[in-house]
């Protein structure tokens, strides 16, 4: 019987051989495909096995991972401040992430090459590696004040506040916004439902209006036009008189360019300070037409407009004054209309550049990155982006902008005991529609601690919205928060 027994043994060997081959096929050849199959929930668990680092702003925790002790989804993301910081923190969804959660993901989850040493130490000391903590430049008081003031009475809009000397972003608010908590639950189905609902909302709560959308800047852009004029000729100053007709005839068109509401601008011959205070359109359009498109574009570029897209580290939409057309178009561009499109962040950089004696600092959101044990991995290093205007020009612009607040359209932004520089804007959108209300400012004028830009979107604050009435008071409360008043 030994013959057939040996053959049976051969069959057994063959069976084990087949099993081994098949196991090799599955775990080597097909492993990748099986791992990446969308129905394989294990990838999804891996996201929750790491204790991600915190996102903080000063002493305030904006995002943290909480150990739920659950076997499947051990560490879950929470956002104690919810909506207020959503445009900054973003969210950490089962299959995606947004904003800071996405752009600093490799540090937050500890996989970054900069954390290699930490991971090595953790391995040797048998500790579970944690992600690094990311501290932001956001000033919680300013952020909350901005959120409260802008969010009141159903307005839509955005606000960005910058520390002029460094470029550190002190506040970045976009309204309406969303609560990142329900989007960060470890449950694809509920998260997708919640996300779809937000994505379909006509008010676009997922859009970060501060950096992801551009608007016509309206009269706030006159500051840039004025800067170009001051730079072109040293003898020009706040008291230089310019023509300010009631209506400006635009060459090669039948249309005229009126002042706001068709009103007269003083006597028709006014100082630059007066023109800025009253926000007359005609003098700036005239100035721009005489300077030409190239001069205006060059000045805009010096403020960072139209350059390399910024990363703060969140990606910022590009701003620009639009293509060169005819003189009539240039006249409209100079007062922030036509194809002139700015992000609120870009306008904040204009204000900050003037505040910082003409030097525009690169805006940034991350103050410091430290590993779980507190050792610093990276810290902010303020960087100059460009020199927009000379110190002298900056001084002149500051003087005129202070005058706008003290004597002009922006009186609502006055703070007792602090000199505030500002410029309002009321940008037309389309015929018959309510305008966007803009405001840019910085304070204290002599030693600026904060520069900001904000927009209240068309239609969200009544048909008669204007920079002075609608936007300036909001800016005031944010500046007060930063200045500790």
């Amino acid at each position: 019987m030994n013959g057939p027994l040996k053959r049976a043994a051969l069959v057994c060997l063959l069976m084990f051989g087949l099993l081994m081959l098949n196991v090799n096929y599955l775990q080597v050849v097909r492993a990748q495909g099986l791992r990446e199959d969308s129905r394989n929930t294990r990838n999804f668990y891996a996201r929750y096995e790491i204790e991600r680092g915190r996102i903080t702003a000063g002493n305030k925790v904006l995002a943290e991972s909480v150990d739920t002790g659950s076997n499947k989804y051990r560490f879950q993301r929470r956002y104690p401040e919810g909506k207020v910081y959503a445009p900054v923190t973003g969210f950490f969804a089962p299959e995606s992430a947004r904003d800071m959660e996405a752009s600093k993901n490799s540090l937050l989850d500890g996989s970054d090459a900069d954390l290699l040493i930490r991971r090595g130490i953790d391995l040797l000391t048998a500790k579970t590696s944690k992600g690094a903590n990311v501290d932001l430049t956001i000033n919680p008081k300013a952020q909350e004040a901005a959120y409260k003031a802008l969010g009141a009475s159903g307005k839509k809009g955005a606000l960005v506040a910058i520390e002029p000397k460094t470029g550190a972003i002190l506040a970045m608010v976009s309204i309406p916004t969303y609560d990142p908590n329900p989007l960060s639950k470890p449950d694809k189905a509920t998260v997708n439902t919640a996300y779809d609902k937000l994505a379909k909302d006509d008010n676009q709560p997922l859009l970060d209006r501060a950096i992801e959308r551009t608007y016509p800047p309206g009269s706030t852009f006159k500051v840039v036009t004025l800067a170009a004029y001051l730079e072109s000729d040293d003898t020009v100053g706040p008291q230089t008189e310019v023509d300010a007709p009631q209506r400006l005839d635009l060459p090669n068109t039948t249309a005229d360019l009126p002042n706001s509401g068709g009103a007269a601008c003083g006597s028709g011959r006014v100082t630059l300070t007066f023109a800025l205070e009253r926000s007359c359109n005609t003098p700036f359009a005239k100035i721009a037409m005489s300077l030409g498109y190239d001069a205006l574009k060059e000045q805009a570029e010096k403020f960072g407009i139209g350059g390399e897209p910024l990363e703060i580290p969140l990606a910022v939409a590009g701003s620009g004054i639009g293509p060169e057309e005819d003189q009539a178009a240039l006249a409209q561009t100079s007062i922030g209309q036509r194809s002139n499109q700015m992000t609120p962040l870009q306008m904040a950089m204009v204000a900050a550049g003037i505040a910082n004696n003409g030097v525009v600092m690169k805006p940034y959101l991350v103050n410091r990155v430290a590993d779980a044990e507190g050792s610093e991995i990276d810290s902010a290093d303020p960087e100059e982006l460009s020199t927009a205007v000379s110190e002298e020009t900056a001084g002149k612009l500051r003087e005129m902008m202070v005058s706008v607040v003290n004597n002009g359209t922006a009186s609502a932004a006055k703070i007792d005991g602090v000199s505030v520089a500002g410029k309002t804007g009321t940008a037309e959108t389309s015929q018959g529609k309510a305008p966007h209300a803009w405001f840019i400012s910085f304070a204290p004028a002599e030693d600026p601690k904060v520069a900001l830009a904000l927009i209240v979107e068309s239609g969200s604050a009544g048909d008669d919205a204007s920079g002075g009435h609608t936007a300036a008071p909001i800016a005031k409360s944010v500046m007060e928060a930063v200045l500790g008043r």
Partner: protein
Amino acid sequence: MSTPSVEPVLLPAKRRVAQLAMLAFAVVIIMGAYANVGLAIDKQIPSGMLTYGLGLGGFMLAAYLVLAKFAPWADPLILPLVTLVNGLGLVMIYRLEAAKMGGASATNQLVWTGVGVVLFSVTLIVLRDHRALQRLTYTAGAVGLLLLVSPLIPFLGKEINGARIWIGVGGATLQPAEFAKLALVVFFAGYLVAKRDVLALAGRRLLFIDLPRARDLGPVLITWGFSLGVLVLQKDLGSSLLIFGTFIAMLYIATQRTSWVLIGILLFVGGAILAGMLFSHVQDRFTVYLNPEDPALYDKVGGSFQLLQGLFGMGQGGVIGTGLGQGHPEQIPLAFSDFIFPATGEELGLTGLMALLMIYALIVERGLRTSIAARDPFSKLLAGGLSFILAWQVFIIVGGVTNLIPLTGLVTPFMSQGGSALLANWILIALLVRMSDAARKPPPQAIQDEGMTQVFQR
């Protein structure tokens, strides 16, 4: 007339010390695996490491002592290998229980392991000469059939997960097919040894094949019919395939006639096609086998969800695995029983699975070696049959869960949670050990040279 040689005959080594060392090594590996699970899940050595590790070690020491006393010549490798597989199963079940998987209970499994070792010992102590089983051929056959049909008896049988393969005894449930398979192998061995000459020699030649006589086909057809009956009435594809395949293999070993294998395969294919046409669940298994990744099948009740989850786990494990306690085998439905193999593959990776398959192959190889070394046909056939059924069972279930062949439910020997299978397999191992003891025991030696008259010591 020659005088017996004066030189002493060399005795085969018992290798008891080596066996004890290997046993200790197996227990150390298992305790290390427990520690691994605990460190991965709670960051500390689990209290279970001592309970389970020493529990297992204690049981195995007892088994070793019984073996050393009652089967001193037995193969030294079988017990340590089985210990390793059994312990690995315990670790996986412990690990799944720690992941709060419903139904997984390492404590129950450890208790069953203990009972298994008791049965192993009792078998070795009571059954001093396995040839006694030959006298019980027809009794074993009757018992086997009775056990096989027992789940169909009203009030006694229970249907769990769609298969009526359980009986309730008191509060516990038993899977009688596991014991039936032992009784049937004993029956096949006894029957085929008695009838093998007539099965092998009588018949006529048609073309290249020696066809058996019609009346000799009887037992084959009866077994075939029976396994189909089990399949139909209990929806237990696995057991019917197991029993039928083992019978064909033993028939071949006994008669050495390839025609039996061909007839068996034809009958099997015919039966499978018939079953596929008649029963939707058989057909479902087959469509799932052909296309497990089909989304429609994945979402269907009784579709490919379970199989694919097992494959995902194995894919995730890759070559070195996620490490014990660091994967998500609890995602796989029934990971503690039928699907314990992919669950192990997820955490121990290809490396672990290759080692595991190698251990199974070695156990089977030791069994077949016993069979070849055995001195009488019944022992040969019984040892061969028991070894083959073990290999065949591993092939059916592991091949099923790795999508090599259509999935039929069977337990993975010594690993899957479940008392009946563990007890039956420990008895199977006891029988192999008993037979290897008999096979390796040196023939009686002459005490002294006494010429034609010799005194033997038995």
